[in-house]
Structures are given as C-alpha cells and as structure tokens.
C-alpha cells in the first residue's frame, strides 16, 4: 500500500494551481451551504446530520487538494476531537438538563425555566440546539474518520 502511494505521488505533481484555486474558491461556499442546511432544517429538507456531512466534506476536499498537513493546520486534531465531544455533550447534556429541570428526559419545554418563553416555542428552539450539536459532532467525526483511513492512523500525510 505504501509503495502504490509513493508511485501516485511521483506521477502527480505535488501542487496544481488550477486544483488549488478551484478548491479555495469552493470550500467557503460549501461550508456556507452546510451551515444553511443545519440552520434551515426546520423549514426545508436538512438538519444536523446532512449539514454536518456537508461541512465535513468541505474539509475533506481541502485535505484532498492541499494534503493532510494543510488540512490539519486548518482544523487541528485537538480541535476536531473537542468538537466531536462537544457535539455529543450538547445533545446528551440538553437531554439531561431537561430531566434535571423537572421535565422528562429530552422534554425541551422544561427549558422554559431557564429562559421563560412559551413551552411550544422552546420545543422548536430545543430541536435547533440539538441539531447544532449533531452538526458539530457529525462534521468532526467524518473528518476524523477520513484522516485515520487516509493515513492508516499515522495522521502524517496520506492521500
């Protein structure tokens, strides 16, 4: 596997202006679209999982064009794992918080004790908060899985 990787590297030049410029232009738009898919999940097809995957794809595209070290400069390994944990903690934390505030597990209307708006609106906002957590977690995990797979766990260079 290592040999074929080196062969590939010899055949393709390390840097390619067209590729890099295109990717540089595309990545912000892809990320914007990913954020749109997350926050607009209430009104159109979308939500945390879909938006998270789109966001993750933007960073994977970045890593494909610029190499893994550059993508780790863009989003460091520590930040990535922190994001994954934070995403999971937001969801489970909100769920537990609802229970601690006197509601049932995941009963978003109990959050009205923190910020008194009407319980039904809190359900809508609760779904939104949770979707943000899902988006963060899915993005970070997708990037992390890609890094591990592409470099065989060494996280040095890879594809």
């Amino acid at each position, binding site marked *: 596997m290592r040999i074929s990787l080196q062969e590939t590297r010899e055949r393709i030049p390390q840097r390619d202006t067209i590729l890099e410029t295109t990717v540089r232009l595309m990545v912000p738009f892809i990320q914007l679209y990913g954020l749109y898919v997350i926050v607009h999940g*209430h009104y159109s097809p979308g939500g945390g999982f879909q938006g998270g995957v789109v966001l993750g794809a933007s960073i994977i595209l970045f890593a494909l064009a610029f190499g893994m070290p550059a993508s780790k400069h863009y989003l460091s390994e520590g930040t990535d794992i922190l994001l994954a944990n934070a*995403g999971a903690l937001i*969801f*489970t934390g909100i769920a537990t918080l609802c229970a601690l505030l006197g509601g049932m597990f995941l009963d*978003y209307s109990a959050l009205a004790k923190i910020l008194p708006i009407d319980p039904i609106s809190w359900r809508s906002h*609760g779904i939104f908060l949770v979707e943000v957590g*899902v988006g963060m977690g899915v993005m970070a995990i997708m990037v992390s*899985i890609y890094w591990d*797979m592409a470099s065989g766990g060494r996280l040095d260079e890879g594809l």
Partner: protein
Amino acid sequence: MKPLALLATLITGALLLYGTADFAAWGDPQSPPNRNISVRYVEEAVKETHVPNIVTAVLGDYRGYDTMFELVVIYSAGMAVMGILRRRDDQ
C-alpha cells in the same frame, strides 16, 4: 459453502416475499402505517412543536431519544476507528 449460502439466501428471499402477500398495495393511503400513528404527526406536529418540516419535528422531538443515540453511534464509530488505527506497536 457456496451452495449452502445460495440456499440460505433463496430461503430468506422466499420467506420475505411470502410475507408481503398480506400487505397493502404500494402507495395506498389507507394502509396501516399510513393511517395509524403517523396521522397525528402530520396533523399535530406543527401545532405541538412549531416546526413546519415534520421529518425534523419527529426526528428532533417525538423520536429525539433515537436521534441522540444515533449521534452516539457515529461518535463511537469515530472513536473505534481512531482506536483501531492509531497504534504504534505493530507496524
């Protein structure tokens, strides 16, 4: 091995097709899944959660418990991949 696998596959497929005989035709609005609990989701979800996208409402609230563990599933997959591949002992 291979004939046995083929036999098991055929039996499974035949059993599954045998079971479909009792189902309603495709796209029937009166079939049990379309008329039982899902009716309330369509009629009440917007009133109860203020979310016009019913899929999001059901995913995030009515079945939010599933979604929470869905996130935990993908999180554990990421951690498992990390644990499996990032090792230095046997290169």
